[in-house]
């Protein structure tokens, strides 16, 4: 064989039965070999002299192909598979997925933390709102206990929020570690000082817990709504200069108030409190007790007074409280009113007041004009019109009741 091209053609023709890449590789090798040999100064015949016959070469290639190629084919496939799903790639993608999951959780915890922080402020706000009235904030054991409770809630919320924030922070830290290889640029600021928050809210929690635990509200929740210890709920104390006070505004919402003056007069007001109850009360002296009665009872008022002089009791109720029916009755078996020259005025938006006395008890009215005894009155209704004075005359002695509408 004197011609390289003939040699190559014969060789490649022999390899026809094998896949194309085999003959391509073979051609590539011999072409390169031939050029290199030529460049080293040999001529074509000199080069071809050293070549084995194409048949020998092709038979060896074919033999090798059938011996080794299938294995290689398998390896090629495995290699391809490995390239896509290498262990490193698996670890990386695992880390990536884990990183995303932890990041989502970090976001979730961060949002919860924010929610709790807003919530804690809302709790404190609602606590203040609860004890806020038209007359501003009134601090008494009950309102303080409400404040303390909302502070407990606030600090608990804050502590949980800090815990969540810390978890979010930790997750982000984990996340950064996981994704570090994948996203080297992703470096979040991870310096976080949460200790001061824990200390501050821990102290707030402790103090407010003490406030709640020592509060009478916490000690006996039913007691506060049902009855009162006069000494505990003294709003106006002995230092109260009764002679100077003509009008006393009290927010009696959800609380029991006792106003104690001299023991000359006593007024007890029992009422139910759906919401607000404004009491404008003026007297020279006397005792005013306001208590809440159990739910679903019709508000009723009870007056005890031994006061000598003029007692003005003005009760203003919100519009949604209907006072069409006010029952004035005694809690005990007998109600005694010692009224000496007292004009009792009931001012209300309603013009009809039913004075209903039921049960077997006597009403004694005592005035300077004499002792009046009202006998057992049953199913007696007085229809009172606007701006009218009514004489209730019993046994020849009368007491004046004036009823008129509030003009605002």
């Amino acid at each position, binding site marked *: 064989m004197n011609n390289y091209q003939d040699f190559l053609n014969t060789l490649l023709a022999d390899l026809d039965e094998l896949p194309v890449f085999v003959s391509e590789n073979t051609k590539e090798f011999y072409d*390169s070999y031939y050029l*290199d040999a030529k460049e080293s100064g040999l001529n074509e015949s000199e080069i071809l002299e050293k070549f*084995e016959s194409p048949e020998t070469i092709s038979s060896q290639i074919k033999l090798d192909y059938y011996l080794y190629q299938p294995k290689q084919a398998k390896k090629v496939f495995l290699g391809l598979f490995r390239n896509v799903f290498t262990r490193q790639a698996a670890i990386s993608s695992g880390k990536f997925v884990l990183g995303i999951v932890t990041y989502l959780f970090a976001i979730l915890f961060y949002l919860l933390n924010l929610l709790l922080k807003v919530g804690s402020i809302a709790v404190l706000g609602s606590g203040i709102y609860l004890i806020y009235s038209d007359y501003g904030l009134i601090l008494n054991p009950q309102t303080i206990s409400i404040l303390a409770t909302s502070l407990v809630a606030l600090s608990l919320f804050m502590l949980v929020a800090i815990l969540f924030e810390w978890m979010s922070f930790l997750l982000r830290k984990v996340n950064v570690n996981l994704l570090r290889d994948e996203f080297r640029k992703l470096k979040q600021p991870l310096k976080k000082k949460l200790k001061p928050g824990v200390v501050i809210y821990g102290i707030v929690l402790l103090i407010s817990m003490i406030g709640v635990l020592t509060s009478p509200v916490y000690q006996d929740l039913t007691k506060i709504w049902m009855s009162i210890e006069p000494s505990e709920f003294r709003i106006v104390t002995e230092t109260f200069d009764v002679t100077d006070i003509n009008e006393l505004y009290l927010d009696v919402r959800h609380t029991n108030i006792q106003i104690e003056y001299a023991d000359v007069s006593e007024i007890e007001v029992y009422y139910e409190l759906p919401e607000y109850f404004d009491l404008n009360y003026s007297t020279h002296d006397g005792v005013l007790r306001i208590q809440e009665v159990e739910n679903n009872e019709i508000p009723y008022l009870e007056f005890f007074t031994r006061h000598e002089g003029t007692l003005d009791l003005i009760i203003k109720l919100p519009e949604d409280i209907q006072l069409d029916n006010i029952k004035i009755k005694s809690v005990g078996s007998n109600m005694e009113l010692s009224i000496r020259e007292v004009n009792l005025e009931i001012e209300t938006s309603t013009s009809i007041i039913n004075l209903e006395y039921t049960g077997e008890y006597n009403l004694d009215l005592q005035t300077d004009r004499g002792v009046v005894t009202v006998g057992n009155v049953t199913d007696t209704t007085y229809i009172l019109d606007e701006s009218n004075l009514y004489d209730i005359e019993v046994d020849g002695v009368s007491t004046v009741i004036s009823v008129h509408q509030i003009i605002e």
Partner: protein
Amino acid sequence: MNIQMKKGVLDSLVLNVINKKDTYGYQLSQDVSKILTVAETALYPVLRRLEMQDLLKTYSKEYNGRLRKYYTITKKGKKMLNSHIEDLIELKGIIENIMEDNDYE
């Protein structure tokens, strides 16, 4: 040399040459033929087989405006070469023994 013997040591020789330095077809045949008389073109099937066995791998490098295929040894190839060397040491013992027995100097 007997063709069977040649075949036996050719793999070791090729691996050894490439282990020293990455090389291409023609250069390799030059290096090998200095040591062992072998038809130069017969190297191609050997190289092809060694490559299929993962003992060698190739990469292309530009030379004179064309790509020249270089052969380099793999880890597996190095291991194989070492095991060949162990075999050759054993063979050397056999050869020396045969030489002594025949007073061949």
